[in-house]
């Protein structure tokens, strides 16, 4: 597609429910990133894939958060047993290059707005 596509755009989950957020990166992009953006703050890094390999998951806040990209294209961020503090916008981004400082631009999707009630 023309840009990074995320779904659902909006999700309301009851506390304790599991959610899955999907990201379709730009076709051919090797690198894929997940960020969490709380209200009034900048995006916070969660995890990074190069193709299907998850190279960095240092930003995942707890073991309730899990991300995968099994075929090196579409990625899913799963949050188990959601809690109120998980309410945020979850941004997916992709770039063409690999994990070196390559100078490739990162393109963001519109985000998935998660509200946990």
């Amino acid at each position, binding site marked *: 597609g023309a840009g990074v596509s995320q779904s659902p755009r909006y999700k309301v989950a009851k506390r304790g429910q599991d959610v899955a957020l999907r990201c379709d990166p730009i076709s051919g992009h090797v*690198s894929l990133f997940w*960020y969490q953006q709380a209200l009034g703050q*900048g995006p*916070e*890094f969660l995890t990074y894939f190069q193709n299907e390999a998850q190279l*960095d998951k240092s*930003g995942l806040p707890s073991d309730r958060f899990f991300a995968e990209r099994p075929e090196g294209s579409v990625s899913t961020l799963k949050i188990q047993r959601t809690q109120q503090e998980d309410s945020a916008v979850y*941004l997916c981004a992709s770039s063409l290059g690999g994990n070196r*400082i390559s100078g490739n631009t*990162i393109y963001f999707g519109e985000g998935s707005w998660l509200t946990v009630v």
Partner: protein
Amino acid sequence: AQSVSQHNHHVILSEAASLELGCNYSYGGTVNLFWYVQYPGQHLQLLLKYFSGDPLVKGIKGFEAEFIKSKFSFNLRKPSVQWSDTAEYFCAVRGGAGKSTFGDGTTLTVKP
């Protein structure tokens, strides 16, 4: 570890005023630096980026930024703002391992 600090949380200007938004970063190695803009209800869009070479970088919509290595700064400027520049602006640094670190953002309100 890399970090970014944006000094101004909220800036209010009148149309045609000049703009400068501060950004300082912390990282020990070679960095890529970015400014992103987020218009109300829209996704993050790249304004400009610095990778190497000329430290004065020109971006879209008349924005520019200057990388001053000695000051670890990458301030965003625009000589004359318009009402349509009302948005949130994020500075970001990308060091090793691919990830970018963002500042907390500056909300710019331009009064017509």
